[in-house]
């Protein structure tokens, strides 16, 4: 068994992992990234469309370009990366943590570190998770798997496609499949509003004349060996109208029904998860309840843009480095999701420094107001022309607004 020793290890070499490692190296500590695929970049590599990098690189890049730029920075930082290594286990015997990484090239790696940043990303929810009944023919794929097959492996998974769920990957795949010569017969969304970004609705559906069925439940997938049709039923006034159900003939179903942070390894380590995000609870240093274990990116909560992932992971990496050097969280205030807010991350902040929070709302609304309250006193109020659950909202808390916070003070964020 090969033994390695570093100040910190980052699990996952996507945008979050590389960004966290950059900051750990910038603080002068040694750092290794363990990545299960053969390349750094994670899911970015299959996102060949544009729309990334406006914040991190100040220009619009494709996914692979963003990954490449990150990797250049990462390589220049002097951090190490082991590729094709799947971390199966983390032991926490006390002073140091021990990671076991499985690899064909290196055998089993035993990596001893002082701190760990979790950056494993998320996985797609699948048919079983949303319990679509019906037959089990070939031709049902998650949108991300289809994206991988088309963009990286060069295969077309099918020719007549129905997309279930209006998440961003599904919308982007509607366009991608159309470009590849397939016919996309519709995108079916159970909610009355789309789950993906507005720009994707316009650019991927409207521009291609693909119908979007809002407020429709997918009531069945049918077919023998291969998918033959999908049955959908409208939802009216909160009730599914099964008598109005109809079938859309197709040979392929792509599912874009949400993403789940991939925290099975975290749970094994004793990391506690927030049921609203399925990601770890973190404190003002982005640290989980397990001392020395930090989290950032989609493993913490599902982001809509990679630029936010990178920004958040930089903060986590920097905090991890400070923690290794002995800094501990000072006084912390609890952050509470108030009216119309699903969650805010992180859920604790230190009042002495500026804090950036990401949150998601539960509602679709024009002319909304984002309100931050400290113990029921409004300390920040901002107009938001439009809010919807699919678009993440960020808010920065000014230390001077938090100056008179008491030991039991709570910050509440509301969308009104």
């Amino acid at each position, binding site marked *: 068994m090969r033994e390695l020793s570093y100040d910190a290890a980052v699990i996952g070499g996507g945008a979050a992992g590389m960004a966290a490692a950059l900051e750990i190296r910038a603080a002068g500590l040694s750092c290794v990234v363990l990545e299960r695929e053969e390349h750094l970049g994670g899911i970015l590599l299959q996102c060949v469309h544009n729309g990334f990098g406006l914040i991190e690189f100040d220009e619009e890049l494709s996914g692979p370009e963003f990954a490449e730029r990150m990797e250049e920075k990462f390589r220049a930082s002097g951090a190490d990366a082991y590729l094709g290594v799947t971390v199966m286990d983390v032991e926490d015997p006390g002073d140091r943590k021990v990671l076991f990484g*499985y*690899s064909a090239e290196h*055998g089993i790696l035993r990596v001893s570190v002082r701190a760990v940043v979790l950056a494993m990303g998320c996985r797609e929810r699948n048919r079983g998770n949303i*319990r679509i*009944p019906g037959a*089990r023919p*070939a031709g049902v794929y998650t949108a991300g798997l289809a994206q991988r097959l088309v963009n990286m492996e060069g295969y077309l998974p099918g020719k007549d496609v129905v997309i279930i769920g209006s998440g961003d990957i599904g919308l982007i795949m509607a366009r991608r499949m159309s470009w590849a010569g397939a016919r996309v017969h519709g995108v079916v969304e159970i909610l009355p509003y789309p789950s993906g970004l507005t720009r994707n609705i316009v650019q991927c559906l409207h521009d291609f004349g693909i119908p979007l069925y809002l407020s429709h439940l997918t009531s069945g997938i049918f077919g023998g060996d291969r998918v033959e049709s999908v049955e959908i039923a409208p939802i009216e006034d909160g009730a599914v109208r099964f008598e109005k159900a109809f079938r859309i003939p197709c040979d392929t179903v792509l599912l874009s029904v949400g993403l789940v942070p991939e925290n099975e390894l975290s749970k094994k380590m004793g990391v506690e998860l927030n049921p609203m995000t399925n990601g770890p609870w973190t404190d003002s240093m982005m640290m989980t309840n397990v001392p020395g274990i930090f989290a950032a990116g989609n493993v913490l909560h599902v982001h809509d843009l990679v630029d936010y992932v990178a920004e958040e992971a930089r903060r986590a990496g920097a905090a991890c480095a400070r923690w290794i050097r002995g800094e501990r969280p000072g006084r912390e205030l609890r952050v509470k999701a108030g009216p119309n807010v699903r969650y805010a991350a992180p859920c604790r902040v230190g009042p002495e420094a500026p804090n950036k929070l990401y949150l998601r709302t539960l509602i679709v609304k024009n002319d909304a107001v984002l309100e931050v309250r400290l113990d029921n006193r409004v300390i920040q109020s901002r107009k938001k022309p439009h809010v919807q659950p699919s678009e993440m909202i960020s808010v920065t808390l000014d230390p001077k607004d938090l100056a008179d916070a008491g030991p039991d003070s709570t910050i509440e964020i509301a969308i009104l």
Partner: protein
Amino acid sequence: MGSKNFEGGAYDVAIIGAGVCGANIARRLSQYELKVILLDKEADVSFGTSKANSGIVHGGFHHSPKYLKARLEVQGALMFDRLHRELGFPFRRCGIVVAALHEDEMRVVDQLYRQGVENGVIGIEMCSRERMLELEPKLNPDTVGGLYAPAGGIVEPYRFVFSLVESAQRNGVEVRTSFKAERAEREGDLWRIRAEDGASLSARYVVNAAGLFADEVSRAFGAEDYTIRARKGEYYLLDRMTRARPDRVVFPVPTSVSKGMLVVPTVEGTVLIGPTAEMTDDKSDTATTRERLEMILGNARAMIPAISENDVITSFAGQRPVLEEDFHIEPSGKVPAFIHVAGIQSPGLTASPAIGEYVKDLLKEAGLRLVEKPGYDPVLPDRPRMFDIDHYQADALVARDPAYGNIVCRCEKVSEAEIVAAIRAGHTTLDGIKYFTRAQMGRCQGGFCTYKILKILMRETGMSWDRITKRGGGSELLSGRL
């Protein structure tokens, strides 16, 4: 499997249907100096009823001693330990509890207990509420009492079949998949069996273990005319991370038609709930329905309240071949050298090793000469699984074959080497690889590993992309190259 031509003369025995019955019969016959062939119409073995069932080694108390199936159930259940030692399929005697939620159900429990005692079940006991909750702390606290059968167990049904078939093959049995026996005629003392695609072979004895299609096979041979009907059972599978996993198989008190819906802690660590029981006219109908799945959740929660729909990773349905109340295992009275193994519904999996023994004796009575084979080897070589071993054992294994270090399926911890082993054992569809290795069977349901398996499959078999299927037939996965 089995690209060989059928040259070199007639077979002594042709077994039609490579489910759990056909596989047990084939392996039992592989101990003798016989030329045996196991046929199946599907692309792989165990692709019918045997792949979608509860995977229970039953407790021997559900059926009256007047039935053949009760006798074979108790005998079969006792044979599992030895088979498990020889073949290494996943199996554990975790015990079965039957939970009564109302006082009036205790009358039925009492009847089950007496039936079990009559059937000769070892260790069966009646339980108070306290004993039930001690045996299974996750049970509904409203449980009033029940039954405990400590010898009941759990098994992974398809891997049970795979290992039986592999053992039979190692001992000389030929296996031919994608062979649908459509017609047969007598040629002297032989049966000439013709497949849909024109292939044919001849055999002295035929065993009809064709499950749902045993009626069609029987008619094709001019034997008795009967009708197998299908009774569909739907299931939910829960993630191994669920907090609702019981320690034992939990049964409700049965009704006159069904053993009821159970909560099964599968041998691989997940939880299975179901099945429903509904007659259907379409033998290929394995569709699940929203209403039935809601019913399963409700029934399962009545016994184990911690069951949550958030833990569901997939649902599926299987079909039981229904003929009559009892198993129908006997030689045809109409045509020679033809044995029916039909209507094998629950407890068919449990009884199947005893069915192998029973059919071997029927063949002997029908004149088949059984001479023991000197080189018969009942033991399958151990096939390592990354899931089962610690980091140090894993390190040694990867040093031997680096492909063990390449984790293809992260949810179920399956390495490239295990995928390759499945392919080399003849499992060349995505479903075949799934049932053999568990890759694609975990919480992501193949979201991350499917494309990796596709590539390994193409590399190992030389198949082109358009020949890769989910489960054979027209279940192709890809429709074009970009």
